[in-house]
């Protein structure tokens, strides 16, 4: 009994600490608040935009900034919007799912009427959208059918399969051993869409060039376990002689780059230009394994979405797909890429990109599969 009460107290203490932690999160944003008057000032300088911005108050919901990829890309979009005179504020609401809804509700109470949140927060936003029909919700990085959505909800979907397709082609072309890998953090439909596109790219390269490159797709089990990721890659390099690695694993991906440095293999980054990020860092030598990065321009998409909403375009109750054609996904074409990837491979990638843009080539998507089994069978073909 005594022990039980001890644990109850412990649990309460834990909860209260967590509560303190998260309620202070929005308060941590004095910078954003301080920027608001500044933003107004620039808005006055440009009266046309000030008018446009007058009725939209934008809240960007994110667990934490500082991931150097997905969340930060969205934040760059917010910065752009602030520059244009919009009232846009970022809310870091932490990782406790039980508090998401309350915290998003908080932002609505503060008068924010356009909520940007990633697919992680779909359920909470959906519940609130029903309750607050005047508030608009834009969920990005998700894929929903119109009948699943309300009139004040819009969904942005990134065709990560298209970008992954191109880097998949490159991986197959660059592999000398005939084995490439895609290692991901946790399983979810968006991540599987990356994997599907990558596998499709390798397959098409095999078909076009008569090669037989195999793909390993493996899961780390966490977004922040670089140690496990590193060992996973070292094992693949050892047992399968894998020599091109594609990371779709958030923070765990840093472990993949270290494994590539250690084994002298190639890496492909994700979401933002990870070659540049490392080149500008304290460890520039780690950049020299990253051939290219698959880009996902979250920030740009939020800016263009805001403009569409302001112009009164009908984006509601449907999913807007942004892919290669909208420049929302792509790959980094820098000097390192040009120096290390042969010209014919680069040309093939550019040509495939054009074909996807014009619609003459259709890249396989995870959302095309009728069932999980079909997806697994697809992976099996090149395993």
């Amino acid at each position, binding site marked *: 009994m005594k022990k039980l009460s001890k644990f109850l107290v412990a649990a309460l203490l834990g909860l209260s600490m967590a509560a303190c932690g998260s309620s202070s999160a929005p308060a941590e944003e004095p910078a954003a608040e301080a920027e608001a008057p500044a933003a107004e000032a620039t808005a006055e300088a440009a009266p046309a935009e000030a008018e446009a911005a007058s009725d939209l108050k934008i809240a960007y919901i994110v667990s934490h900034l500082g991931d150097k990829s997905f969340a930060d890309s969205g934040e760059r979009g917010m910065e752009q919007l602030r520059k244009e005179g919009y009232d846009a504020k970022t809310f870091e609401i932490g990782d406790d799912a039980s508090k998401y809804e309350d915290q998003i509700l908080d932002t609505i109470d503060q008068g924010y009427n356009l909520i940007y949140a990633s697919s992680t927060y779909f359920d909470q936003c959906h519940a609130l959208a029903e309750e607050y029909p005047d508030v608009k919700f834009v969920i990005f990085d998700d894929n929903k059918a119109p009948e699943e959505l309300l009139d004040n909800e819009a969904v942005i979907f990134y065709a990560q399969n298209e970008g992954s397709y191109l880097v998949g082609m490159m991986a197959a072309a660059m592999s000398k051993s005939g084995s490439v890998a895609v290692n991901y953090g946790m399983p979810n439909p968006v991540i599987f869409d990356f994997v599907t596109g990558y596998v499709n790219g390798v397959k098409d390269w095999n078909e076009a060039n008569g090669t037989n490159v195999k793909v390993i797709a*493996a899961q780390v089990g*966490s977004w922040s376990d*670089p140690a496990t990721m590193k060992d996973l890659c070292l094992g693949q390099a050892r047992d399968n002689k894998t020599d091109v690695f594609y990371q779709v694993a958030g923070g765990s991906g*840093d472990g993949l780059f270290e494994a590539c440095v250690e084994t002298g293999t190639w890496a492909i980054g994700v979401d933002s230009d990870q070659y540049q990020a490392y080149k500008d860092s304290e460890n520039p030598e780690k950049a020299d394994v990253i051939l290219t990065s698959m880009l996902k321009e979250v920030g740009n998409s939020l800016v263009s979405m805001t403009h569409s909403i302001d112009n009164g375009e009908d984006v509601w109750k449907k999913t807007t797909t942004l892919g290669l054609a909208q420049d929302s996904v792509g790959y980094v074409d820098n000097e390192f890429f040009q120096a290390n990837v042969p010209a014919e491979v680069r040309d093939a990638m550019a040509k495939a990109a054009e074909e996807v843009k014009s619609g003459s080539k259709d890249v396989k998507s995870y959302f095309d599969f009728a069932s999980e089994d079909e997806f697994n069978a697809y992976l099996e073909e090149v395993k």
Partner: protein
Amino acid sequence: MSIDIVAFIADAIKMSTPLVFAALAALMTRQAGMFNMGVEGMILCSALGAVTGAHYLGNVWAGVACGILTGLLTGFVIAFAHLSGKTDLYLTCIAFNLAATGGTVFIMYLLTGEKSTTSGAFRSYQIPNINIPIIKDIPILGRIISGQSLLTYVAVFCVWFVWFLLKRTRVGLRIRSVGENPKAAESVGISVKKIGYIAFLFCGLFAGLSGTFLSMSWVTFFMKNMVNGRGYIGLSAQNMANGNPVGSALVSLLFGATSSLSLTLKSQSNFPTEFLEMIPYLATIIAIVFTSLYSIHRKRKIEQGIK
């Protein structure tokens, strides 16, 4: 596809190293009668302390020293709260672990402006791997024993050291007697508080080495939450071995081997990933059942002997 068994074993030893240190850390306080759940947080703090020290002082060994120092410091914080402040140890450890999760990110943010990892902001330093002369040329054994991280050899030494300390020295005897019966120990003039601090000192040392291994040998940067439960695994490893240092190391090795197995199978087999991620824990449950059945069996034999 072919699994390189020798490399697999070498890998398992590497993966076990932080667990062995974690187990030894928990073992030291357990021997003094304190169940220290704070090991997890102590390792996390030490991992950050190590890379911070290495970056600012520009030296691998300074990093190792800072990692150990952070371990000692965090050990002292828990010890002070529990032994001098008379707080409940469970509550202190839970609070400490929660504080460490947020606190490490906060300190990293203060130092670097990053909230996720120091991989860009801090220069990476790696503790060297050691190639042992002669042994490295022995066909199979050489690849397993030689070429490991320096800290892995330190871990092996520490297992022996802890055994020696507990069984062969006066301090060890006192630690064990305080753990067995603090009142009796006090009645013969042993200061329970002082012994508690000494136990936490060793605990901090090993936790520090565990964190240093994670952030300066396995990978070469700090990332939020990078310990991922390895402290708790070490804690349960020494629990399964009943506080025996060699047994704890062997159980840690079992964890390391099963984790390595599940990783290898992820790339090599078609088993569902969810099942593979279960392997280390499934192996633990099975091992616990067997060890407890064995001890029941032994007890019964002793009782029968008495009759």
